């Protein structure tokens, strides 16, 4: 569970995140949407503990934010555009390294660590690339590998900053399946922000719409409608329903 109280963040005098109070329960996938600059990424970064200069309180898994990095990593796993710097590491070894917060110094990885790494390799369809070096992986596979690295940590909360960038439809499907599986037991949660509104609508249990650093609206995917899109994104759109699950799908008018 994540409990956020009166969270605000200013950078160079500009209010980026403004007085957010929210409780996010385990077992949920939360999707954060909003136009560029609305504060989505900063909101996630602040929860992840990447920006300490905020006001208000954040507690993850009933544990207040801590300076102990090991506890922090077990509590929260944050996915961003950060690039691993050593391209010579193989994908499997890189994924296994995500289990380091659980590993004791001078002790090898446990069988369970290897089992989790194998599980996510398989879940994200990466088996055939396991012995490939990071520097030689195709972009989509590399992205999937980075997502697997985030999930393998099995943190109480996974925060994904634009996970859908550069993913093809196969990868999007695999990611959706992996996220569903991640929260399935009800003891973990996922918060993701993305510019892909349709992916969020199809995947998230709850949507948070951010505007000027505030949570302007929240609710299930059904809050998505043409007026809402016009209000927060400033464009005209039409909403249809997905034939498989009935969730809303946003369509934009092509420029003529």
């Amino acid at each position, binding site marked *: 569970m994540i409990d956020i109280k009166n969270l605000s963040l200013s950078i160079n005098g500009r209010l980026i995140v403004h007085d957010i109070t929210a409780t996010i329960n385990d077992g949920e996938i939360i999707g954060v949407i909003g136009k560029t600059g609305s504060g989505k990424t900063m909101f996630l970064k602040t929860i992840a503990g990447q920006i300490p200069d905020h006001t208000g309180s954040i507690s993850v898994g009933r544990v207040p934010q801590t300076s102990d990095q090991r506890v922090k990593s077990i509590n929260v796993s944050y996915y961003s555009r950060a690039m691993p710097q050593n*391209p*010579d*590491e193989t994908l499997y070894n890189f994924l296994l*390294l995500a289990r380091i917060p659980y*590993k004791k*110094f001078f002790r090898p*990885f446990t069988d369970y660590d290897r089992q989790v790494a194998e599980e996510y390799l398989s879940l994200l369809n990466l088996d055939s690339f396991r012995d490939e070096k990071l*520097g*030689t992986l195709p972009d989509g596979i590399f992205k999937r590998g980075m997502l697997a*690295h985030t999930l393998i940590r099995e943190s109480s909360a996974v925060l994904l900053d634009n996970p859908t960038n550069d993913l093809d439809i196969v990868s999007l499907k695999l990611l959706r399946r992996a996220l569903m599986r991640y929260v399935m037991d009800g003891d973990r949660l996922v918060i993701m922000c993305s510019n892909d509104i349709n992916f969020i609508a199809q995947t998230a249990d709850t949507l948070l719409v951010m505007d000027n650093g505030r949570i302007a609206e929240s609710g299930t995917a059904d809050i998505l409608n043409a007026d809402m899109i016009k209000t927060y994104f400033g464009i005209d759109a039409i909403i249809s329903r997905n034939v498989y699950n009935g969730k809303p799908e946003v369509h934009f008018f092509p420029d003529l």
Partner: protein
Amino acid sequence: MRNPMMKKNDIIEIASLVAVLIILAWINYLLEVPVIALFATGAGIFFYYILVHISTVYGNASCDYIQTGEAAVGSFAIYACIRFVSANPYLVLLSGFISLLLYDIYLKILIAPEKNERLLNGILVQAILASIFLYPAAGGGTSSLATLEKIFLGFFSSVQINYTGMIAPLGLGIAALSLSLALYPELRLLSQGAFFFGGSRSVITAINIGMTIIRSLLTTATIGFLGWMCGFGLYVRYLSRSRYPGLAAALKLYVFAEFAIILAHYTSPWFAIAFSACSSYILFLYYAKKRKYWYDRY
């Protein structure tokens, strides 16, 4: 699926390397190379192997100690110490260590070069140091040239330090190897960057300082015992297809070092040094050509 023959091939490769090594060491013994010098070369290979091991685990290294300019800086410091201060082995080690530590700080903090710039920087440093000290060294007569020759061949291998003199650096090497093996996963994660390692800035700084000190000590010991006689361990290690790449690389380096000693005996020490340095650059270029990343991320 792994090739079931791999294991057999690995055993054959390692056994062949050991056999060649014994033959070359025996030839050197017959050529009246002192046994202590052969051991000193072995110690040099040991330090160099640890340096290579640490470089592959921590730091994403692409240049070996000759290409980075560390060999030139270390040799210069050792020469200056012997010429102007003392030939005491511990003082020689200390001067090499301090100069390499400062050079590492210069490389990592002051200029932090990109991959390709690292090579250019190394060549520049070598050219500058050569122009500074080769001319006075040549002007200093045959004794200076003989000192230089010893340094390039591995000062401690040439001056025949005793076995007890090797114990302290060997102890250090064993400690560094044990530590790097024990913290292998942690160091590999750190090599992926602070974001992935996740530690606080102070922890990361402390580890980086510790690793810089260990690397400088190992480079000093490598230059002290091996000189310029093996500057391509990194590429041998990366290019190895063995299931035991570390062991195979160490044996190949030892074989090369023993061969270089024979070469020095039958031609001239300077020819062997030039041969070794050229081999280092050739392997570097070969590896740089082979090490291609298909996508534009690196």
